[in-house]
């Protein structure tokens, strides 16, 4: 199969079959290029923020000036000139008051093209499913997808949030963080920076100074959020960094499931994306956070693509609280991302399920931290890394148990799959146990797709690429199952697309 002819054939296939690379031609408002205190003031002013918020940003900016960018990750890229970026870009049409009917049709069209319907009636009517193939779940039953409320963020601003009224009936707050600052300033003030402080790290510091928009969720005590919440991030403007900030709070006994998706146009220059996500779960609360990250990965030669430098952290603040991260990382030229959980509450639980696929010249350095502070806290890590092309794919993780975290438990499974001999797969776990009653188990394997499996699939009629996609989908199944049903089918397809051109 892998004879020279096939290799040559595959080489002619373009690696970058990125389907979301189109650009929306829309007039934007920019902040002046570069970064200084005035830019921070400009952004805060644009958003009509209270004084305390501006002070908070300035404090972050001043501490950022003294920070250095981290160099420990296994990624390399040219030095970023932070004065050569725009820190704020918003479609001009957004200045008008927004209701769905008044939104610039170009924006609606953009989201429709991305497969994200923003009109509630369309979602209800199931427009989204038209022309889409049905899918089977693992039991062979047809999957009926449910409703999802969406906050659509375009460059630096939130375009619209759907299903607001219905969520309001359930007392769930779901809006852009700019709106939350206006409507619920006390909640924002109480929680913002309480999990990821301004000075946490270089990129989080930068984000704290210049973050533009993002989503805010508050689920009050005892409320189970009636639908999936989702934010869709779209980077469009050129030379513009995207710095969104997401804050999700599940109060006592609340439950929420949240999903973010991201895409960006195909560009020759690299784009910076430095987001911060903070999750807070109080007593008996549960937050399930899923990401399907599909930023533009750059072309086969590593030109362009998004630098995805993201700080995501959850705080299991109350007893028996639970935070679960699920991520599917297929995009971005460089990924630097470690969604973590601080297991502060007794009997709290943290989970991290990850699929990271790298192809072309992508570089992924991703993993998690599970910091056990509470008694009987438990965590589970399942990481599936797939390296193809000339990419590098690193799992980096920390599991630690504080002395007081008696009877803490962790189970970690890290599997890597290599496709081709030009890529690298690396595993860098850190395990720190300071209490004898903690039980930590860590396992890692690295292997390749066996020739036998390939032949078996092909002898049943699958093409080489279909066979790779199928086997990889099997390899990542444990993680896929953690995704909300609505996104499983799309993710499976995305995995296939990401690996196109990887065989040979």
């Amino acid at each position, binding site marked *: 199969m892998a004879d020279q002819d096939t290799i040559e054939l595959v080489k002619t296939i373009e690696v970058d079959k990125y389907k979301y690379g189109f650009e929306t031609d829309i007039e934007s408002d920019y902040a002046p290029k570069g970064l200084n205190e005035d830019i921070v003031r400009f952004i805060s002013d644009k958003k009509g923020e209270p004084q305390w918020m501006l002070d908070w940003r300035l404090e972050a900016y001043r501490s950022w000036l003294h920070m250095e960018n981290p160099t420990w990750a296994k990624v390399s890229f040219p030095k970023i000139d932070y004065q050569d970026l725009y820190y704020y870009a918003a479609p001009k049409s957004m200045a008008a008051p927004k209701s769905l009917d008044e939104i610039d049709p170009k924006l609606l069209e953009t989201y429709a093209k991305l497969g994200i319907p923003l009109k509630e009636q369309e979602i209800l009517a199931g427009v989204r499913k038209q022309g889409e193939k049905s899918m089977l779940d693992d039991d062979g039953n047809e999957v009926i997808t449910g409703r999802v409320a969406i906050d659509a963020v375009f460059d630096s601003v939130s375009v619209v949030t759907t299903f607001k009224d219905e969520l309001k009936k359930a007392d769930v707050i779901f809006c852009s963080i700019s709106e939350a600052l206006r409507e619920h300033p006390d909640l924002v003030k109480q929680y913002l920076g309480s999990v990821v402080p301004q000075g946490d790290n270089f990129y989080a510091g930068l984000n704290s100074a210049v973050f533009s928009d993002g989503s805010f969720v508050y689920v009050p005590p005892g409320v189970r959020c009636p639908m999936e919440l989702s934010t869709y991030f779209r980077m469009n403007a050129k030379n513009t960094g995207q710095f969104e900030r997401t804050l999700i709070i599940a109060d006592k006994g609340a439950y929420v499931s949240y999903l973010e998706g991201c895409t960006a146009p195909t560009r020759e220059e690299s784009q910076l994306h430095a987001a911060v996500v903070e999750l807070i779960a109080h007593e008996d609360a549960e937050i399930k956070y899923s990401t399907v990250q599909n930023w533009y990965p750059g072309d086969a030669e590593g030109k362009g693509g998004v630098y995805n430098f993201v700080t995501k952290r959850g705080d299991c603040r109350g007893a028996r609280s639970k935070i679960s991260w699920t991520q599917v990382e297929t995009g971005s030229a460089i990924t630097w991302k470690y969604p973590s959980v601080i297991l502060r509450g007794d009997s709290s639980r943290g989970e991290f399920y990850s699929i990271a696929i790298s192809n072309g010249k992508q570089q992924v350095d991703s993993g998690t931290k599970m910091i056990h502070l509470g008694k009987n806290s438990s965590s589970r890590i399942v990481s599936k890394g797939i390296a193809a092309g000339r990419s590098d794919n690193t799992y980096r993780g920390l599991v630690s148990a504080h002395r007081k975290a008696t009877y803490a438990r962790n189970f970690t499974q890290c599997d890597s799959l290599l496709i081709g001999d030009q890529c690298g797969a690396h595993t860098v776990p850190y395990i720190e146990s300071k209490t004898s009653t903690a039980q930590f188990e860590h396992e890692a394997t690295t292997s390749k797709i066996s020739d036998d499996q390939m032949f078996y699939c*092909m*002898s049943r009629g699958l093409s080489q690429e*279909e066979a790779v996609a199928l086997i990889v989908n*099997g*390899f990542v199944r444990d993680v896929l199952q953690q995704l909300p049903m609505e996104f499983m089918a799309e993710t499976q397809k995305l995995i296939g697309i990401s690996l196109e051109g990887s065989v040979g």
Partner: protein
Amino acid sequence: MLEIQNLHVKLEDEPREILKGLSLTVKPGEVHAIMGPNGSGKSTLSYVLSGRAGYEVTDGSVSFKGENLLEMDPNMRAAKGVFLAFQYPIEIPGVATMQFLKVALNAQRKARGEKELSIPDFMRFVKERAAKLNISQEMLKRPVNVGFSGGEKKRAEILQMAVLEPSLCILDETDSGLDIDALKVVADGVNALRSPDRAMIVITHYQRLLDYIVPDFVHVLSAGKIVKSGGKELAHELEANGYAEFVEKVA
């Protein structure tokens, strides 16, 4: 349907020749049994016909429905109607058997320019065939061959055959590792697929399987060549006398 002429095959990495001038003609509706001692080249024949990598054809030809089979990728051969029931079916973790059947069937239909089956039609189609092979719904949900017993693996292979409806079925030692009850189930499944436009090549070491899948022709393969051909009675002869006669002949 299948025309093998003077086929010479060696391993890519080794100079040793395994098939040394094998010729065989199979017509639609016929069931050919290929019997032979260990190491005679039986499995090699099945792999070369289905297109596994690692073998080099140094001479001869194989035409299938008038086309050169050897030029095709394994998946093209499958789409054209070649099916190999593996002696040792491969495990594919994480991929449910049902999902696998759907992907395989649709890939073949697509390659042939046919429309994909609708979900309900597909489900009905599979369930019906699974029931005949004593394959439970639960088994269809399990990942392909993972944790299957020997008998389950063989039944799953026959189910794939029943679902994919190939025109040439190659059964490689399908009887190995089966007890008599499982053998009957598998044989019934195979017999149900016998039809005037479908041919079968049944590769086996023992005559036992041929009591249940009665062949039209029996060939003895020894040292890479067919050394004797005959009717089904040849199998009984072999059972009585063993392969010694043929092994010595070549030696």
